[in-house]
C-alpha cells in the first residue's frame, strides 16, 4: 500500500478515536438572588432546581446527555442582575431558570429576549410579564390572581380593615399585588386602613413600619414582603400588637424559614403556598429527598422550582432537532408537576393552585 495512504488512514484513526469522546453536557442556567436579604428565597428555588437536576442526571440525563447547572447570583441588585444575566447568556445554556423576583425579572427579561434565550421563572408573578409573546415563561400564577384570591380568603376569615405593608424593592410584584388586593378587598366590602411602603434593607426599621400600620387601627395586618422582612415585621407586630391576625403574601412563603426566623412571632400567620403540604405521595418523596440533600426543610418555592426544572427537562427531551426551546416548551405540554398539571398558554403563562396555610405551633396547618 502506498505510503501516503497509510499515513492518511493513521490520521483518520487518531481523529476517530479522539472524536469518540464523551458527549457534552447540557447547560441549564439559573439566576436567582442568593445573597443577603433575598437569599432564602433564591436558595429555596435554587435547591429545588438542584434537586431536580441531580435526580435527572441520576436517571441518565436527557437523551444520554448529562445536565449541568450554571448558577449566577443577581443579589437582588439590578446591576448585578444585568451582569449575571450577561454571564449566563455568554455561556449559551439551553435555557435559563429564573429570576425569582419580578424586580429582577424586569432587568433580566429584556436581556434574555434580546439574546433570544428562553427564560422560565418558577416564581415571578407580576402581570407586566403576562400575555407577552417573548422568551419568558412563568410557572407561577400572576399577582392579580394571587391578590384577589388572598382578598377573598381574608375577607372570608372576617377581616374588614386591613393594614398593608409592602416592599418597594420588588415593585413590579408588590405594586400590582397591592393594587389588585385593594381593588378586590374593597370590592368585597373591606377596607384598607393604611398602606405603608418600605424599602427592604439592613437599615429598615420594621418597628416604625408596624407602628405606622397600627395607627390606622386595623383588624388585620397584611405584609407584602420577603420572608425575612415578613419575619421581622411579625416580630415587631407581636411586640407591638400581639393579638392582631397577621397574613403574608406567598412571596414570604419560605414557610420554614419564616418559622425559623420568626419563631413565636409568626404564630397564626396566614400565608399561601403553591403546594399542598398534606399530599403524601410524590410530594412526600420530594420532601424527604430535599431534606436529605439539603439538611433542612424545603422552602415553599422549592416545589415550584422543582416542577419548573422538570418542565424544562420534559421539553428538552421532547424537543425536535432544530426546534427552539420556546417552541419545545409550548409544544411539550401539558406538564405533570409534583402535584398539579402545568399548562402554558400561547404567551408562556401558566396558572398555579395555591393552598392557604396557617402557622400553628411552628407547624403549618393548611386551610381546605
Amino acid at each position, binding site marked *: 500500500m*502506498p*505510503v501516503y495512504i497509510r499515513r492518511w488512514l493513521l490520521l483518520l484513526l487518531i481523529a476517530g478515536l479522539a472524536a469518540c469522546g464523551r458527549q457534552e453536557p447540557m447547560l441549564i442556567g*439559573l439566576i*436567582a438572588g*442568593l*445573597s*443577603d*436579604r433575598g*437569599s*432564602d428565597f*433564591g*436558595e429555596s428555588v*435554587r*435547591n429545588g432546581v*438542584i434537586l431536580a437536576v*441531580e435526580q435527572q442526571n441520576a436517571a441518565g440525563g436527557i437523551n444520554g446527555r448529562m445536565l*449541568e447547572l450554571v*448558577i*449566577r*447570583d443577581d443579589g437582588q441588585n439590578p446591576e448585578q442582575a444585568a451582569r449575571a444575566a450577561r454571564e449566563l447568556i455568554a455561556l449559551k445554556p439551553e435555557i435559563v431558570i429564573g429570576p425569582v423576583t419580578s424586580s429582577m425579572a424586569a432587568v433580566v427579561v429584556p436581556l434574555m429576549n434580546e439574546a433570544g434565550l428562553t427564560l422560565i421563572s418558577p416564581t415571578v408573578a407580576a402581570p407586566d410579564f403576562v400575555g407577552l409573546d417573548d422568551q419568558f415563561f412563568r410557572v407561577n400564577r400572576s399577582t392579580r390572581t394571587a391578590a384577589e384570591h388572598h382578598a377573598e380568603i381574608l375577607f372570608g376569615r372576617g377581616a374588614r380593615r386591613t393594614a398593608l405593608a409592602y416592599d418597594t424593592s420588588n415593585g413590579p410584584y408588590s405594586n400590582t399585588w397591592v393594587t389588585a388586593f385593594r381593588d378586590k378587598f374593597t370590592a368585597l366590602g373591606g377596607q384598607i386602613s393604611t398602606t405603608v411602603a418600605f424599602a*427592604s*434593607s*439592613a*437599615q429598615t*426599621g*420594621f*418597628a416604625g413600619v408596624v407602628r405606622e400600620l397600627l395607627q390606622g387601627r386595623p383588624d388585620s395586618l397584611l405584609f407584602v414582603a420577603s420572608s*425575612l*422582612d415578613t*419575619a*421581622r415585621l411579625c*416580630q*415587631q407586630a407581636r*411586640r407591638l400588637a400581639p393579638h392582631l391576625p397577621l397574613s403574608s403574601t406567598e412571596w414570604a412563603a419560605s414557610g420554614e*424559614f419564616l*418559622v*425559623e*426566623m*420568626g*419563631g*413565636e*412571632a409568626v404564630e397564626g400567620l396566614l400565608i399561601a403556598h403553591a403546594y399542598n403540604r398534606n399530599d403524601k405521595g410524590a410530594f412526600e418523596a420530594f420532601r424527604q429527598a430535599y431534606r436529605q*440533600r*439539603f*439538611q*433542612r426543610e424545603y422552602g415553599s418555592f422549592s416545589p415550584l422550582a422543582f416542577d419548573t426544572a422538570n418542565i424544562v427537562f420534559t421539553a428538552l427531551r421532547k424537543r425536535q432537532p432544530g426546534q427552539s426551546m420556546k417552541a419545545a416548551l409550548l409544544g411539550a405540554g401539558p406538564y405533570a408537576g409534583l402535584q398539579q398539571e402545568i399548562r402554558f398558554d400561547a404567551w408562556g403563562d401558566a396558572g398555579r393552585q395555591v393552598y392557604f396555610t396557617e402557622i400553628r405551633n*411552628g407547624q403549618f396547618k393548611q386551610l381546605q
Partner: protein
Amino acid sequence: MIRSRLREWRLSSYLATLLTLTSVLSFTLVASAFLLTRIPQLEEEIRTRAEGDARDLAARIELQLGSLQEQLAMLGLSLPARSEASPLLERAVGSGQTFRALYLVSPRGKVEGAGLAADYRHLQAEVIGSDLAAVALFRNVRQQGQAVWSGKYLSALTGAVTIGLGRPLPDGRILIGEVPLAYLLNIVKFNLGTESRAIWVIDQRGDLLADTESEQTRGLNFYSSPLLQAILNDRPLPRQFSFDGRAHYVGGARAQTLGWAFIARLPAGLDNPEIRMTVLIVCGGFLVSLLIGTATALYGAARLQRPLQHMVRQTHAVALGEGSGDWPRGQIVEFNHLSADIGRMAASLSEREQKFLAIFNASPIPLLFSNLGDDARIADVNNAWVAQFGHARAEVIGRTGLEIGIWESPEIRTQVLATVLDGHSSVETVLRRKNGERLRCKIAAQLFEINSQRYLIWVLEDISEIRRIEQELRLLNSSLEARVAERTAALSQAKEAAEAASRAKSAFLANISHEIRTPLNAIGGMAHLIRRGGLPPEQAARLDKLEAAGRHLLEIINMVLDLSKIEAGKMQLERQPFRLEMIFANVCSMLNEKALEKGLQLHYRLPPHLPRLLGDPTRLQQALLNFAGNAVKFTEQGEIALSADILAREADHLRLRCNVRDTGIGIAPEVQARLFQPFEQADSSTTRRYGGTGLGLAIAARIAEAMGGAAGVSSTPGAGSHFWLEVRLAQAPAETEAPGTPPEEIESALRALAPACRVLLVDDEPINREIGLMLLADVGLGADLASDGLEAVARASAQAYDLILMDMQMPQLDGLGATQRIRALPQHRQTPIVAMTANAFSEDRQRCFAAGMTHFIAKPIDPAAFYSLLLSILQATASEKMAQIPG
C-alpha cells in the same frame, strides 16, 4: 504482481526526513515514557500539595475561628449576671469586623441583650426581645451544650448572611455571635498562595461559604457531590473533579470543630501550569531535538553532498561521454574508495574505448556498426570505411544504408540483411561509393546483443581489386603452368641429357677400365703362367717387375674409377676385421724395393696391443699406400716413417691417426691447401718429374672422410712432409681365425673333386679365356666356353653346370644380364656363378649379388684366391649332392 513505485529522494531531503523521523520517533518514545511516568507523579504531588493547602487553610481558619471561640468564651465569662449585657456586647462587637452582632439569649430563646455593629445599631430596639428559639444554631447549642459553629444562614435579626457561633453560658443563657462572611473571606484572601490554586470553604450543608478565587459563591452546593462526601467520610478523593467545564485536581481537608470542608482545586491537565510546563519542556525538547536532528541531517547531508555531488557530476560527465578531470578525495573513506574506483573504471573504460576505437579505426578493412532497432541504422563507421565509401562519418551516423545510397537496391539490402542475420558467414554483392562507383564487396556481419539492444558489425571488404587480381592470377597461373610445363620438359630433357651423359661417362669409364683391364689381366695372367713354367731367378725378378708394372697400371685404372665413383658419391666401405699391422706391413713391403733403390729408410712403428679393427682394409691400405708412395717418390734422402697414434679410445671405437713422415722436398704452404683436390699435383713440373695421377690424395682424403675422419698435411719446404690420416674405426670382435690352408692342399683337393664338376667359363676376351682354362686345367678342371652372355645363356640352357665363371664386361649381354637369364633357367637356380670382374669394390659386389651371382673374384685373378674359392664352392656342391642321394 503490482510493483509499487518507489519515490526518488534527494539525499538531503532523504537524510533530513530520515533523521527527523528518527529524532521524532525516538523523542516521542522517550517523551511518552517520561510523561507517562512523570505526569501521574506530578499530579499526585499537586494533589498532595492541594490537600496540604486545604489543610493549611482549614487549620488557619480553625485557628482564627478558634480564637473567636475563645473570645466568645471570655466574653461569656465576663458577662455580668444580671445587669445589662448590651453595652458590654456592644463594646465587644466594636467595629463589627469580628462579630457583627452578639446576642445574649435566654434559655428560652429570647434575646436579652444584643450588641450590634454600627450599621445595624438602629435595629437594637427591635432585636431585643426577638425570638430565636427556632433558629438552628440556638437549638444546636442547647442540644449539645457546647460551643457550636453554624453553617451559613440568613440572620433574621440583621438580615445578613452570616456564620454563627453559639456558646452556652454556665447560667443556661446562650451567647450567640454573628460572624460576617467577610471576616472569613479575609482569612481566606490572605491565603492566596499560588495563583492557580483555589480553595472552597464549604459548610456542613454543602453550601459554599467562600472561594479564594472569586468573590461570588455562585450559589454552589456540594452536598451531593462525591467530592464532599469523600472528604466528610475520610475516603480518598477522586483523581480529578470537573467544575465549570474544566477538570481540576482536588485535595481536601476537614475542619473538625467547624465541621466545614476545605477543598483545594487546581486546574488539571494542561491547564495546570506545572503540568503545562513539564509538557512544554518535553515538547520543547522534542522540537529542539527535531530541529537539531534536522539541522544535523542537513549539515551532514550538505557535507556529504559536496564530494558526492562532485563525484555525481563527474560520473555524469563520463556517462555522457565527456572527459573527466581529477576524481575528488574527501574525508569519507567509502567515498574516496568509490571515487578512486570510479576514476579507475572511467579511465579503464575510456582507455578500452579508445583502444577499441583505435582498433576499429586502424583496421584496414572497412567496418560498420549498426544498431538493429526497428531498422538497421548506422551507429559508427571506421576510417577505412570512410575511405572506401567516400561518406563522412557525420553524414552517415543515424541513417540507414539505403538512405546514404550504399545499396544498389532495397531488395538487395533486404536479401543481404536476411542472409546475414540468418547466420551465413559472408555474402558477396555490389555496393556503391559516394561518387557512384561500384565496388564488389564481400560482406560479413556479426550479430550481437548489448543490454538487450541488438547490433550488427559489418565487415565490408572491397574485393573488386582482389577479384581483379584473382583474375590476373588465374591468367598468370595458366600461363605459368604452361611455362612451367615448358621448363619441366626442358629440365627433364636436360636431366635426361645429364643422366645420359653420366651414364655415358660411367659406361665410358667402365669400358675404358675394361679395355685397359683386359690386357692387364693378360699381362698378369701370362706373367703367372710364365712363372709357372719355371724361370731362372733373374727372369723371375724381371717378371716380377713386369707384374708390378701391370699392377701399377691396374692401380691407376682403379684409382680413376675409384675417384669417379667417389665423385659420384658411390663409395661403399667394407666392414671386415683386419689388423692394422697387416696394412702397414703390406704397404712397406710394397714400397720396400723402391725405397731401397733410392737409399731411403722405410720403417713403421705402431702402438702395442692394437686390437683388431673393423673396417675396409683395402681402402685404408690404398690411402696409406698413396701417402707412403708419395713420400718415397718425393724424398731423395733420409727416411720415411710410418706410424699410427691412438687419438682416442671410445667404447667400441678407436680414433687413429696414421702418419707418413718423410724428409723429402716438402710442399709450399700455398700448395698444401690444394693438395687434396683431384688432379692437383704440386705443380706441373712435379708431374713431369714424379709422375702420378694427381688423384691419390683426393681419394685418400675421401677415404678418410668416409671413415669418419680427415686427411691432412703439414710440411716445410726443403725439410720434409708429414701426411696424416685420421680415421674412426670400430674394434673388431675377437676373431676366431681359421687357420690358413696351404695352397698345395687346396689344389690337391680340387683335383680330387674335378672329375665330377662341369664348369662354364664366360669371357669375351680370348686371352682371358685361355688363362682361365689353363688355371682350371692346372687343377684338373675342364670347362666349357662362352664368349658372351648370349652364348653363356644358350650353353646353360643346354646343359647343367656345377659352376659358372662369368665375366662382367661383355658385349651384347653382359655378365649381369646373362646371370639373370641363367638364373631363370630351372637347372641353374642354385648353380654357383662366380663374377670375375675388375671392379672389386663392394658396390660392384652388391650389383653382382643382386643379379644372382653367388661369388666374386677380382681381376686380375689371384690364383691362390681363385683356387681357394673354387674349392669352397665345389666342396659345398659335393656335399649337397651327397645329401641329395638318398641313403
